């Protein structure tokens, strides 16, 4: 419990530090003040990928080991991945609105593929909730978790893969070389947000263990079906 609190508190500090760097670093002349959002947008997306990767790993481990802890890890990591993707999408949209004057374009392969990835993991969570049997839930979500991860490289490389089909945005600085200070701010935020992910992960796992322990308390032995007591028929 204490450990969890300390982790969360330090994660808060790390994120604040990251924000400080984001707001004091020099800005890209072309994109203006809004380019500071990149310091959050990119790390959130990266960490979301990391989270889904962790889920895939945990899912495969569950399929091999079949122990509940891997299932818990997969579930906790998807939940965080979804939240991080949502934040990444949101910051991307704010930025897009500011820079291109459009928040969204389905024709952009990266946006479309990110959205699909987001929905699929929301579907993963809905599926989990729909299955009451823990073993069956773990099995099916492990399969889905292990398979769904193939979208991650698709999202990551979508810009390159589909360039032949669609023009990429001209001011999108993919792979552009940045000034040192800007790179520094980005890296600090990357570290801070990764740390935030791990802190939240530990907290979520802690909660999941508590939930499972309370569920185990109520779990019963197979039912005692007893012979009928016909003597009491008259009392009904």
């Amino acid at each position, binding site marked *: 419990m204490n450990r969890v609190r300390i982790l969360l508190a330090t994660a808060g500090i790390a994120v604040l530090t990251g924000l400080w760097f984001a707001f004091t670093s020099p800005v890209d002349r072309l994109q203006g003040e809004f380019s500071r959002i990149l310091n959050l947008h990119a790390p959130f997306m990266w960490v979301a990928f990391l989270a889904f990767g962790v889920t895939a790993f945990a899912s495969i481990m569950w399929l091999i080991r079949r122990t509940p802890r891997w299932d818990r890890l997969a579930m906790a990591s998807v939940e965080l991945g979804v939240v991080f993707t949502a934040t990444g999408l949101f910051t991307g*949209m704010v930025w897009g*609105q500011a820079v291109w*004057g*459009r*928040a*969204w*374009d*389905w024709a952009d392969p990266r946006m479309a593929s990110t*959205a699909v990835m*987001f*929905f699929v993991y*929301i579907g993963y*969570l*809905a599926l989990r*909730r*729909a299955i009451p049997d823990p073993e069956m839930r773990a099995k099916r979500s492990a399969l889905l978790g292990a398979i769904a991860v193939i979208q991650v490289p698709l999202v990551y490389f979508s810009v390159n893969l589909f360039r032949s089909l669609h023009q990429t945005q001209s001011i999108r600085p993919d792979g552009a070389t940045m000034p040192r200070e800007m790179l520094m701010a980005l890296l600090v935020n990357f570290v801070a947000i990764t740390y935030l992910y791990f802190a939240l992960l530990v907290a979520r796992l802690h909660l999941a263990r508590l939930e499972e322990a309370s569920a185990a308390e109520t779990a019963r032995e197979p039912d005692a079906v007893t012979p009928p007591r016909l003597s009491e028929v008259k009392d009904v």
Partner: protein
Amino acid sequence: MSFWAQAVEIARVDLRVERRLGDVLRVVLPFAVVGLLVFPLALGVDLSAISLIGPAVFWAVGILFGMQVALRQAAHDNRERRDLYALLGVDPAARFVGRTISGSVLMVGFLVVLLAAMIVLYSPRLPEGWPIPVIVGLGLTAVGLTELGTLAGEVTAGLRNRTALASLIIVPLALPLVIGGSQTLESLARDTGILPWLLLLVATDLALAVAGVAMARPLEEASR
């Protein structure tokens, strides 16, 4: 047992089953909220115009996903259960009323959460004094949609391809409800009196209720 006591018992158990399965709140609602986000994206709307289309998107998503909410009971119905209720002396009309009660509770919950999400996501400009008329309009729409869903479920009871059929029956009939519901807000904004729209909703709800109660027995007999 009295008609109302039966209706309330049916509603109570239906809500308990929903709590266990989580059809509405855990499966449909999150997707509907996501739908709220995606709709304007799909239409390629500019973010600066977003506050204008909030209500329209709300109604579109509300009806699309609300249909799944309205049809949830049909999905759990089967012949054994219908026979069971018949031989427990449940009046088919009481079953209709009970299902409408529980369904409306869920539908109102669903639409209110969706509305809150819409307000947060779109920050639409709402006319002053909107909450009460809008919530009343929402409630009336929810009741009507639920009645429609329950009726469609009864009409298609016992058929194998019922969910497809029932959802196809609901959509066109839901039109007046959606128009009434969405116009409450619009006419509030244009200051043109919302009473007619609320009355339209009340009239539709009542008509559906009367139809449901009156048709309950014949439909029940037709389902065997």
